[in-house]
């Protein structure tokens, strides 16, 4: 066993610029390793630590408020927007109707066979993350990620019930008195309420919201609805209320992927050490102005950080680039009469140039890089392709599959009959008459379905297709004796002002044909 104190001393000296444990947001130094689960005298596991971030106001905080309000509003309110689609389709603006396999989004209705729209949107979301990362770094993590938004919300609840940073830290250490129990109960009750609302809002996307709400409270909703609410309530309560930054640091794959995407041209939150170092309090700096930089070591940047990192240690996985430390530092710099931007959004390249004496570059210049344009081009191309496909799609479709067993049927009088399964798709929210005609078969070829019977066989048939449905019809086509058929097509025409058409090629099998 080495001398613990010895290690401690060495640790503090050597662990200056890149303290990995600190980089992970834990702040635990080897010496802080406590008892229990000892491995050769040190601990392999560190105790959980709650981040009590201090209230701060500033442009980035206000932007965070705005994003929070907008994203939460979208999440909670969207399912309640009504959208009139006539009597044959639901009137919920955004609805994922799994039971009927339809996805409604305002005026757009996606059918299962058009799942490529959903796939395209998912690809756009993925590339969108790349685009955002290359343009503005970890802005998603800092502002829009649900984990960030809900963590922020829960931290505000902490502040509301227990007070600001110092009060909360005191309360954490305080013994379990009646007042502490009351506060904790109140806080967790609010957590639970928010969590329940979060889970409750989720299921509204999958069924008619008002009906589901009534059924839910009447105990008549589907078991999967209760299970989903329970799971999402639990995860929101646990991940938002307790795990918080641990999710970003240990659970989420995105920060890890981002570490491979960020480079010296990426926008990150930086501490300008060339300007800040040597850190020192105002008192020290007053004595020897030449020896000290702008950083007065007030630790406000650490106090306001929602993930508890020290940004002055440089880029690190715990930093979600939310900019609250910028707000805090700017406020302090203003108070002590020094220029703002000691901590600021910048790229490493800009920092290096600035350190070398170049004038400060506005952060938005980080946007103008080829990678951003490439990602934007790909993202935009997919979006344009999806819009084009959406604009030009027809609302009718016909697919035909001929019976393969038996491929043809010889009838008593020598005529030959083939059977086909027709699928007539009507994507309009109203019933439509559709005409199906045979094209390319010799004269005398007739068609009938089980609905019209052989006596009414004719070269064309009109089939009623219900609103919003694919009608499956078994159709028979018959050639009189002596005639031969080969390739031909069914032509579908909607008998309304749209007159949409579709043609399905198929073959007519005969004795002796291949």
């Amino acid at each position, binding site marked *: *066993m080495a001398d613990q104190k010895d290690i401690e001393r060495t640790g503090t000296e050597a662990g200056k610029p890149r303290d990995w444990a600190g980089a992970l947001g834990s702040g635990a130094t080897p010496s802080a*390793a406590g008892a229990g689960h000892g491995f*050769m005298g040190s*601990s392999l596991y*560190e105790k959980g630590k709650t981040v009590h971030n201090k209230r701060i106001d500033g442009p980035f905080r206000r932007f965070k408020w705005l994003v929070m309000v907008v994203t939460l509003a979208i999440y909670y309110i969207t399912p309640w927007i009504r959208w009139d689609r006539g009597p044959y389709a639901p009137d919920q603006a955004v609805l994922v109707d799994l039971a009927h396999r339809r996805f409604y989004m305002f005026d757009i209705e996606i059918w299962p066979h058009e799942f490529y729209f959903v796939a395209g949107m998912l690809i756009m979301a993925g590339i969108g993350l790349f685009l955002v990362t290359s343009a503005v770094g970890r802005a998603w993590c800092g502002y829009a990620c649900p984990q960030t938004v809900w963590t922020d919300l829960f931290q505000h609840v902490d502040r509301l019930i227990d007070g600001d940073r110092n009060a909360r830290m005191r309360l954490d250490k305080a013994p379990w008195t009646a007042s502490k129990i009351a506060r904790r109960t109140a806080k967790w009750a609010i957590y639970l309420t928010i969590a329940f609302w979060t889970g409750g809002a989720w299921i509204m996307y999958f069924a008619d919201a008002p009906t589901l709400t009534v059924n839910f409270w009447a105990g008549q909703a589907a078991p999967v609805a209760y299970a989903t609410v329970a799971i999402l309530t639990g995860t929101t309560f646990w991940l938002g209320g307790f795990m918080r930054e641990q999710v970003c640091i240990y659970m989420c794959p995105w920060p890890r992927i981002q570490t491979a995407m960020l480079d010296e041209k990426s926008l990150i939150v930086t501490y300008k050490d060339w300007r800040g170092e040597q850190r020192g309090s105002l008192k020290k700096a007053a004595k020897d102005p030449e020896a000290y930089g702008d950083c007065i070591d007030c630790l406000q940047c650490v106090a306001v950080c929602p993930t508890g990192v020290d940004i002055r240690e440089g880029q690190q996985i715990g930093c979600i680039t939310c900019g609250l430390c910028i707000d805090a530092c700017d406020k302090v710099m203003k108070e002590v009469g020094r220029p703002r931007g000691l901590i600021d959004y910048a790229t490493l390249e800009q920092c290096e140039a600035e350190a070398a004496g170049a004038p400060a570059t506005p952060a938005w210049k980080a946007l103008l890089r080829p990678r951003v344009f490439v990602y934007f081009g790909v993202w935009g191309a997919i979006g344009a392709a999806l819009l084009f496909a959406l604009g030009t799609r027809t609302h009718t479709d016909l697919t035909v599959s001929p019976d393969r067993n038996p491929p043809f049927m010889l009838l*008593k009088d*020598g005529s030959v009959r083939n059977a086909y399964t027709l699928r007539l798709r009507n994507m309009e929210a109203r019933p439509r008459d559709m005409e199906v005609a045979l094209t390319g078969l010799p004269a005398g070829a007739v068609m009938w379905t089980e*609905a019209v019977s052989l006596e009414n066989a004719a070269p064309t048939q009109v089939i009623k297709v219900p609103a919003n449905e694919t009608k499956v019809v078994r159709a028979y086509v018959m050639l009189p004796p002596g005639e031969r058929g080969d390739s031909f097509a069914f032509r579908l025409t909607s008998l309304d002002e749209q007159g949409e058409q579709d043609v399905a090629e198929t073959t007519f099998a005969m004795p002796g044909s291949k």
Partner: protein
Amino acid sequence: MANKRIDQPTGTETVGHEWDGIEELNTPLPRWWLWTFYATIAWALVYVVLYPAWPLIDKATDGTLGWSSRGQLAKEMSAADAAREGVVRQIAATDIEQLAASPELMGQAIAGGAAAFKVNCVQCHGAGAAGSPGYPNLNDDDWIWGGTLSEIEYTITHGIRWEGDDATRANYMPAFQGMFDAGQVNALAGHVLSLSGKAKPNAAGANLFAENCAACHGPAGGGMPEMGAPALNDAIWLFGGTEAEVKKQILNPRHGVMPAWNERLDPVTIKMLAAYVHSRGGGQEAAPAATETPAPTDVAQAAKAENDG
């Protein structure tokens, strides 16, 4: 052994091991991670108690919940039976010729029949019900014993030439081996083929036919479904329509046999099978009923079941 030191570049303590110069940094995991690990162990212990887990010689430990995949299947099967019960009872209570009056019930019957067909009938009649020489095609419009729903139901119920069933459909065409000489057989076969325009008519054959065959097959060879005499004047031949095959059948007729399915299947399944066979495209309407054109039928299920095959 505990040769702990601080790694200079990272400022992190090592765990103290050293393997050929390779050391490991002590980067502590969060404690909650450890609790997650313990939770999975606890979960596993509970699972081992509740569910089948430890393999024994011929089975596994039962688990206190008594769950088994076989038991779950049985439960799901009986749940499916229970769900079908209403429809089954309805079909049982409906006369088969009245089934078509309810398109929905007919659709259910056809779907059920399609499933039963795959289990019981495809061995002889083929997956597409197209048959093969000696095994009738059920898709066409030629019916030896009649093609209305009730006639098909009767045929399935009692079988054909099935010894165990007194009500079975049976007939036997006599073997003309030794009764005709070669010229007569040629003439008769020629006449039979001429009925459907496959050969030139000949007087000798026509005479032989009138004397020996017309009693059952009809003077013009139109057949007689009441006694199962096939029509000879159409394009469909159960045992083949070449001259050699026709001659073979005259001299030494073969007689197909079908089991009486009431020995194995319940009446509702038989009714559904009849509906399915009838729906294959050649089904005939019952003569006196003169039902109006059946209402549009939702054939989705039937079509789907067929496509499965």
